[in-house]
């Protein structure tokens, strides 16, 4: 259900915790599964739970509580733009509005070609680099002026 590479990554996470506390690796295991699959289907969450030897409902609770897990399919590139106050004071809403206009979608939507999903984010702890945009959960893009957005999107296939 998950590749050998993903399983090896999960094993590395499990090794960080005491032998009787495998449950602590749930968050990373779900993250690694989501990286491979693009999103977390119920079967994927159950697979992760069984792999860690925890009740599926425990993994499900984690997947629903933290907002970087995607429980529905998202576009090939998920763009999360921070609009919290500190970013807003340095162009957060301009970046968001520009992306909405350029991609023709609103927050929470995916472009018709399935390439982009746009998400409104909260503070990412990077306000000094405002406006900031998180690409596919793992890559922080700083100083997202219109030109920087154009350049970034052109780089993505």
């Amino acid at each position, binding site marked *: 259900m998950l590749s050998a590479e993903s399983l090896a990554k999960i094993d590395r996470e499990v090794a960080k915790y005491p032998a009787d506390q495998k*449950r602590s690796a749930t968050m990373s295991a779900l993250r690694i599964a989501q990286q491979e699959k693009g999103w977390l289907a119920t079967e994927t969450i159950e697979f992760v739970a069984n792999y860690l030897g925890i009740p599926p409902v425990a993994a499900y609770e*984690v997947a629903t509580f933290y907002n970087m897990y995607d429980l529905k399919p998202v576009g090939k590139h998920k763009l999360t733009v921070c609009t919290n106050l500190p970013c807003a004071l*340095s162009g957060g809403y301009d970046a968001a509005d520009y992306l909405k206009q350029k991609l023709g979608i609103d927050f929470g939507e995916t472009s018709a070609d399935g390439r982009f999903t746009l998400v409104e984010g909260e503070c990412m702890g990077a*306000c*000094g680099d405002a406006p900031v945009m998180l690409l596919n959960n793992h*890559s922080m893009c700083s100083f997202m002026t219109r030109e920087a957005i154009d350049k970034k999107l052109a780089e993505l296939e």
Partner: protein
Amino acid sequence: MAVFANGILFEGVDTSDPNCWKIEAYQARGGYQALKKILTEGISQDDVIAELKTSSLRGRGGAGFPTGLKWSFMPRSFPGDKYVVCNTDEGEPGTFKDRDILRFNPHALIEGMIIAGYAMGAARGYNYIHGEIFAEYERFEEALDEARRAGFLGQNILGSTFSYELFAHHGYGAYICGEETALLESLEGKKGQPRFKPPFPASFGLYGKPTTINNTETFASVPYIITQGGQKFLELGKPNNGGTKLFSVSGHVNRPGNYEIPLGTPFAELLEMAGGMRGGKKLKAVIPGGSSAPVLPGDIMMQCTMDYDSIAKAGSMLGSGAVIVMNEDVCMVRALERLAYFYHEESCGQCTPCREGTGWLYRVIHRILNGEGRPEDLELLDSVGNNMAGRTICALADAAVFPVRSFTKHFRHEFEHLIEHKTPLVNHKWC
């Protein structure tokens, strides 16, 4: 983004050098000398804690609790497992200092956490890292590998009887996990919902074992205190407010960034270091300690010095040291509405006053902003707030109420104007 070093955390760190975070660079700056000193000179646990007390180091995560005192609460001689946990879940809007510690000086944190393990008799530590900063998480893991290879982590460190393991845990998007007991739940692989206190983590923490939780910047300040002495650290700042501190300056300034300055530095100086007001606009308001701290009008801020006591006296909190600067073009109703939305989104929902109250606050401010406010709305905000603050499991409810109380106190006329005339007093421009 600017990083200004004048103190201890970024002293001598060339942030333009891509290898400045590596162990060789850290050791060239005198890194790991504190740990060596403790283990080779046989400095006792009590002496380490006494040095921290002398330094007057106060927690850099928000509450400003004296670190030496906190460490002394740990039952050091308790025979079972004990844990040291670092809070790098930096999600308080406006705060971005801990990320830079991981980026530019991660070994200072690692060394501080090892010393914490030694002083409190813990054999294991975890650093909980904010979900949105994956690159920093990976870098921290690399730094941990370096420290293991160098023999600073693992069995019998530097030939002593002290053994210690340290690992990184990656969050995945929940502001509430910055609250220390929610963080512990999350480390255990559960939903990040705060626990009732007492019991406090020092007696019932991670996996039910004695645990001490500190902020990234707090731990990273420890090596300096050991090598240079608590007295010297104290003298960098002012009495009861020892040391230098990182201030994350954001908003309408010319050079947003992290500024490491002695506690007690006048706000006016910090503002100048950050390049002054962008576009020469007039300073209107400042949130001096992260979004949960009460807002202060610019003229009051200009009279303050940047330390716990001065900011508290002015009616706010130094909090995490996140300084959010706003100019005259900001409609305060709109600014508050964005913050209220945040707290509503991030309430974990366990306590009715917080779950319902944050929603109420947001909806009432939202309708005032949209010209649908009612004459009784300001009183309503007050009474909703009174039913939340101090009546919940954790301080998120208070954190949601402080901005509402302070915005409606200091900028009341803007709220009244909107309610009465249905249009804002200030022609709002974000930037």
